[in-house]
Structure formats: C-alpha cells, structure tokens
C-alpha cells in the first residue's frame, strides 16, 4: 500500500482527505504511482502531469523521505520506505507566485 499526500487544491478536486492509499504493483516509481492515482481519481489527470507529454507540471514537486525527487526520472524506483508504506509520497504545489 502506497501512501500519497496531496496538496489542498487537489484534495478538494478529488473530494478526498490529505492522504490517499493506493495499491501499486512493483516496481514503485513516480510513473506507476501517478498512473494508479489518476486511474482512481480521473479528475486529477492533467493536474499533476501534462495530459499529452506526461511531464510533471512546472509548479508541482514530488518529495519522498524528505528529499525532493522532482527531477528524478519517472521510472526511477522510489525509496523502499515509500514502496513499503512506511513513508508517504508527497505531491506539493510549489511555493511560487502571490
């Protein structure tokens, strides 16, 4: 079970709480987590990754185990602590703008 923490606006959009739990088959990567997230909550499609390019939106960041993994390749393995559910995968709206 993967724990994913969503920013407030995406919580409202998906009508969920701060943290959602997902069943993600190995290998657990950014791509596999987001694929499952978007399948379960279709309204989040396009809100985290661009619909067409599947690239992370510019002002969205990913954190795992207190590390910014936003620039890691989407198919790189996430830390074991995230894959085991001990730690959450954080989707964060960048602190930007006014």
């Amino acid at each position, binding site marked *: 079970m993967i724990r994913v923490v969503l920013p407030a606006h995406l919580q409202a959009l998906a009508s969920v709480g701060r943290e959602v739990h997902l069943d993600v088959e190995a290998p657990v990567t950014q791509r596999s987590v987001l694929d499952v997230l978007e399948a379960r909550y279709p309204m989040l499609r*396009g*809100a985290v990754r*661009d*619909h067409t390019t599947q690239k992370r*939106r510019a002002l969205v960041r990913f954190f795992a185990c207190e590390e910014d993994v936003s620039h890691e390749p989407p198919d790189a393995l996430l830390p074991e602590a995230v894959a085991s559910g001990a730690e959450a995968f954080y989707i964060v*709206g960048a602190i930007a703008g006014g």
Partner: protein
Amino acid sequence: MSRVRLLVGTRKGAFVLTSDGKRQRWDVGGPFFGGWEIYHLKGSPVDQDRIYASQSSGWFGQQIQRSSDGGKTWEAMNNKFAYDGEAGTHMWYDGTPHPWEFKRVWHLEPSLTDPDAVYAGVEDAALFRTTDSGKSWHELPALRGHGTGPKWQPGAGGMCLHTILIDPTDPQRIFIAISAAGAFRTDDGGKNWKPINHGLHSQYIPNPTAEVGHCVHRIAMHRSRPNVLFMQKHWDVMRSDDAGDSWHEISGNLPTDFGFVVDVHSHEPQTIYVVPIKSDSEHYPPEGKLRVYRSRTAGNEWEALTKGLPQQDCYVNVLRDAMTVDGLDKCGVYFGTTGGQVYGSADAGDTWAPIVRDLPAVLSVEAQTLP
C-alpha cells in the same frame, strides 16, 4: 415573478448571485473552487440549471466543471484539450515561429439547442467542442488550419480565443474572436473559416489594415439581428452590418475608444454599452470616473451613465467577459471590475448599485433569466 442568476468568475473562485425580478436584494453564493481562477461560467439556454465552468490554475492546469442543479453542486469533467494532429506553430512576440501550446479555457459557449453541446475557446487560440456534456473535447481544426494561423500572434494577455457567438437563426454560422489575430466566421459549422477583419485599422501593427493581426477584445450581437455585430477593439469601437464582411467605426463621442467590453440591450438591438478605459497601458477609467457609455443609435452618439457609479478616485478595469444583460423588462445590465465589485442596473443603465463590493478581481459575469 422571474428571477436573475449571475454567474461570476474571479481570480480566486466562482460566485453565484441571485435575486428576484426586482433586482434590488441579492444573495451571494460561493466561493466555489476557492483559490482557482475561474475565467468563465455559462449556463445552457436549453437547461438553465446546466452550467459549465472553466477552472484553471498556474499550478494544476485546466479543469472543466459542470453543474446540473444551477450551481449548487459541481462535477469535474474531462479536462483534456489536445490539438488535432500536428499542433504546428504560430508567431511569437518576436516574430519567430512558436509551437501551439494549450494553456487554459477562456470562454465556454453552450449550444442554443443542445444542453450537452458546448464550444470552448482556448489559449493558445483554438476552438473545441463537446457533444457529450464535457466527457470529451475535440478541436474544430479548420480554424487554425485555414491558412492564416501561422501569422497569429499573442496579445499582452496571451493568444486567446475569447469570444464565441452562435447565430440563433443559423447554428452553422459562428463568429469567434482572437487576441491578437482578429475575428473569424464559419458558415458551415466549423468546416471552413474566413477572417472577417475588413475595415479594421490597427496602427500598432506593421500593416494597419492586414487580413489578420488585429487585437479584437470583444464582439456582441442581438439575437434578432445576427448580421449586425458590435466590436470593442484594442482601440476603436466598430460595427458591422453584414455579418463581419466589413466594419466601420462607431466610437463617436466616447472619451476614449479603448476598452474591453461591449454588449447589447436585450430588447433594443440598437442600444449598446461599453466601458471606456483610458489607454492600453493605463487600464482604468479616464479621470478616475467609472462610466458606462450607452448608445441608443447603434453607435456614434454616446451618453455617459454615472448614477450610482464611483465618480472619483476609481482605477479599476472591466475585463472582456465581465459585462452581461438579463432578459427582463426593463433590461438589467451588469458588470464586474478588477477591484472585485459587481455593479447592476435594473433600468437599462439609468441607475446603478453595487451588488457586491469585495470579491476577488472579476474575470467574467453572465446573467441567467429564470422563470
């Protein structure tokens, strides 16, 4: 007694304002989608409880929301706007080719006959349509592909398709406008398009009378005279009496002919409204006086409407989708400002009063006249 519902899009959410036919006391509902930019909301004329909203964010992109109960509850719909085929390039600010990139939906125009059909005008400029109530969106590619698309350039606010007018006597005829490409018309439901900018003169572009390149801010028509179009251009207020084939200036005695909005009285097709703005860099009313100007002669002769509007120290703007009229008699006229005020007039503009004063900056206002 009839009621009026105003759908207000702002920089930080949507609001629904409701009143009875007297239009003196208003209830303010919202914010909906707090924190998101709501460029536009509009209800279906066939089913007025069916409302579509464009919700966007610099962080999380574009969403489309649909309500089936008059704005009480909302459902997120498909938000994928993919250009048809190879996206191609338009012209960037510096004149170089730049790839078409979807950014947001500026305007939603529901069909006049089918509550499940809606047109969407987007940035970078293109026209999309859904026929399944927002479950899927498809581009009408002939607009970008008719030939002049590679010459289109963005205006200061981006390259947006912001105006969609459907001819009520012939739904195959649609008028659209793009900043800063100009106005276009299809007579066959979007299979073919042509620029309709003859008579526009824009001194700020290399060829002031070019076929495309004009910064059209807004077009309006009265449903009884779909061949008569009114335009607020970057500078100049214009009229066409032949469905856009030719335009002539009707700025007349306006204090400035820069502005964003233009709209038509719901029962008097010769009566039109604009809000003059000082200049293209000074986006506020001349002399700090917020004045709506009304012409009862389809232009050229204008009167200032000031009763109830601030006549000193007012430096707000009124954006292109932020004026509307209701269908009651007397005609109600409404507009929202970048200062967060929504003003209403229940007597066709003779007198005004603020409906609400302190919303986020208003992007759009649409009126629904309910039974």
